[in-house]
């Protein structure tokens, strides 16, 4: 009897993934064996090397179109573009994690996560400068899962990647040093709802397997053509979409988003908001266009409805928020809806302009959100962060630079011209109109106008209100946060003023193989 034939593995095409997972594995060893004093710098260096190495690898691989690992992974333009985006966002997030100048105890992460919050030992540790560094390997694992998610050419790999990216994020949400109860609560909610959603994804996987006899995306496509209106297949697709939309925080599967964004440490929220969104939409694009691209009637009405729901829920509920992090969470729900208009604009077999538009939007949105959350870590009162909107009143008088940069990011999120948000929105709306989905574009324009109100409200509050006498202080950031804010602000402007070359790059990368 012959042994099992080994699948063909193209190590070159997997280089971005190998870099990040390698960094994660080395990080675990460092956590176990390196002396405590050197752990922090070493862990930061390893995590950064992994993310930056992965980014360089995606650049070197540009133009690759191949299916590898026995057909389980598709390394194509879309995968590489999104992997590069995720790697950049990941590297910037690691810089945010490593900030040591803001918190009096030199880290935003809890000293020992297993000590009960509020206990005597916890109070002792809360001023301790010993920093736990497990967050870096966890972040590397999450990063690797996200990058795998965008390249998965097989529902099973997609499921494993979903869990590899989710499990570290559940833990990371619970690691805040200040307001530990909120943080733990965020972790519990995220975990229970996340596991619930992945059970739906898995049941969808099982039904699609039953309908088509395979979980390979290309095999599903071939079977979907032949069988047409198979109930099992449509039901399976619906459940798969539910699981993915949960990760992408699309309404009505968004209920975890505001709570988790508010409770998690702000640097982790930044990472989740930016990188998870990119990864989830990468998987959505691949599932809908590689596996179900020939059976568009099955998902187009569903995605249409989800896009409208998400835009309306995000924009309307965002109006009522009084917490900056919650407001940005509802903004992320609204942006998920805008991204879905780009997904609708893909046209038959992904030939429309929607694919490139969605990819550009993901890049622009990720960088802007990361910058906005980075600034939220700077505004502090007492030992923690001041996230209530009333505390931001008159911020321009305390720190003109922070207020101006926050204003820039909020204008970009609102989609004002000359910022990256405008270019992105213009691209996805145009894609939707060109494929005949103009009612969706109308709804998107109306909700953009509503959403602009709550972004502008913060700007008005920062510039035209008197600062409260015992208001927050603006922390002086160390080098890492300064780099993050500078890079994201520069990118927000450049992608708004001179988006041409990046749009061309997205256009030329907009190819899905499978």
């Amino acid at each position, binding site marked *: 009897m012959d042994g099992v034939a080994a699948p063909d593995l193209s190590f070159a095409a997997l280089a971005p993934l190998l870099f990040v997972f390698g960094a994660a594995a080395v990080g675990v060893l460092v956590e176990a064996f390196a002396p405590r004093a050197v752990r922090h710098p070493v862990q930061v260096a390893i995590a950064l090397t992994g993310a930056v190495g992965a980014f360089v690898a995606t650049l070197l691989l540009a133009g690759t179109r191949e299916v590898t690992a026995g057909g389980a992974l598709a390394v194509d333009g879309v995968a590489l573009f999104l992997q590069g985006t995720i790697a950049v966002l990941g590297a910037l997030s690691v810089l945010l994690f490593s900030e040591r100048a803001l918190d009096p105890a030199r880290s935003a992460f809890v000293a020992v996560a297993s000590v009960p919050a*509020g206990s005597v030992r916890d109070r002792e540790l809360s001023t301790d400068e010993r920093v736990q560094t497990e967050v870096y390997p966890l972040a590397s694992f999450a990063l690797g899962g996200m990058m795998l998610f965008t390249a998965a050419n097989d529902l099973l790999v997609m*499921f494993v990647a979903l869990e590899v990216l989710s*499990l570290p994020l559940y833990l990371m949400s619970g690691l805040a040093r200040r307001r530990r109860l909120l943080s733990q609560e965020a*972790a*519990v909610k995220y975990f229970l709802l996340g596991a*619930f959603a992945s059970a739906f994804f898995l*049941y969808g996987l099982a039904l699609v397997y039953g309908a088509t006899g*395979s979980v390979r995306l290309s095999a599903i496509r071939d079977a979907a053509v032949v069988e047409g209106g198979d109930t099992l297949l449509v039901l399976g697709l619906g459940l798969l979409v539910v699981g993915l939309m949960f990760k992408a925080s699309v309404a009505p599967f968004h209920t975890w988003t505001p*709570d988790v964004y508010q409770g998690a440490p702000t640097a982790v929220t930044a990472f989740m908001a930016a990188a998870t969104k990119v990864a989830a939409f990468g998987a959505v694009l691949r599932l809908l266009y590689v596996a179900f691209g020939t059976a568009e009637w099955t998902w187009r009405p569903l995605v249409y409805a989800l896009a409208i729901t998400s835009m309306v829920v995000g924009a309307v509920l965002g109006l009522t928020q009084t917490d900056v992090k919650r407001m940005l969470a509802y903004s992320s729900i609204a942006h998920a809806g805008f991204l879905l208009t780009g997904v609708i604009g893909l046209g038959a077999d992904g030939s429309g302009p929607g694919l490139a538009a969605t990819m550009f939007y993901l890049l622009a949105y990720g960088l802007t959100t990361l910058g906005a959350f980075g600034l939220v870590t700077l505004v502090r009162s007492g030992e923690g962060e001041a996230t209530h909107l009333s505390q931001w009143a008159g911020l321009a008088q305390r720190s003109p630079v922070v207020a101006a940069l926050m204003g820039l990011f909020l204008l970009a999120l609102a989609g004002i011209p000359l910022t990256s948000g405008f270019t992105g929105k213009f691209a996805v709306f145009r894609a939707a109109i060109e494929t005949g989905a103009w009612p969706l574009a109308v709804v998107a324009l109306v909700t953009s106008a509503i959403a602009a109100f709550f972004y502008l409200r913060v700007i008005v509050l920062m510039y035209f209100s008197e600062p409260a006498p015992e208001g927050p202080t603006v922390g002086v950031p160390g080098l890492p946060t300064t780099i993050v804010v500078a890079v994201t602000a520069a990118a927000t402007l450049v992608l708004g003023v001179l988006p041409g070359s990046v749009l061309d790059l997205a256009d030329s990368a907009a190819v899905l193989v499978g």
Partner: protein
Amino acid sequence: MTITNYLVLAAILFTIGAVGVLVRRNAIVVFMCIELMLNSVNLTLITFARASGTVEGQVIALFVMVVAAAEVVVGLAIIMAIYRTRRSASVDDVNLLKY
């Protein structure tokens, strides 16, 4: 016994799990309901593997078990951390974050 019976049984188990997640209040019980959902998926996968005569479904079921085990580790760690603080695992007590 036709394979439809197994599929219906799996669908019933999945529904019981899903309803349990929505109505039960103890985080541990909610978590058990999620495990029930995952296992009903395994039953579905194995039934389809049997029906189609391929081995793929059984392999996927093994993957699901491994992932579920990893999920248990993370989930119980998180629930333990909050239980130690609050002396309660009820999801109704976890109510600081809202609106």
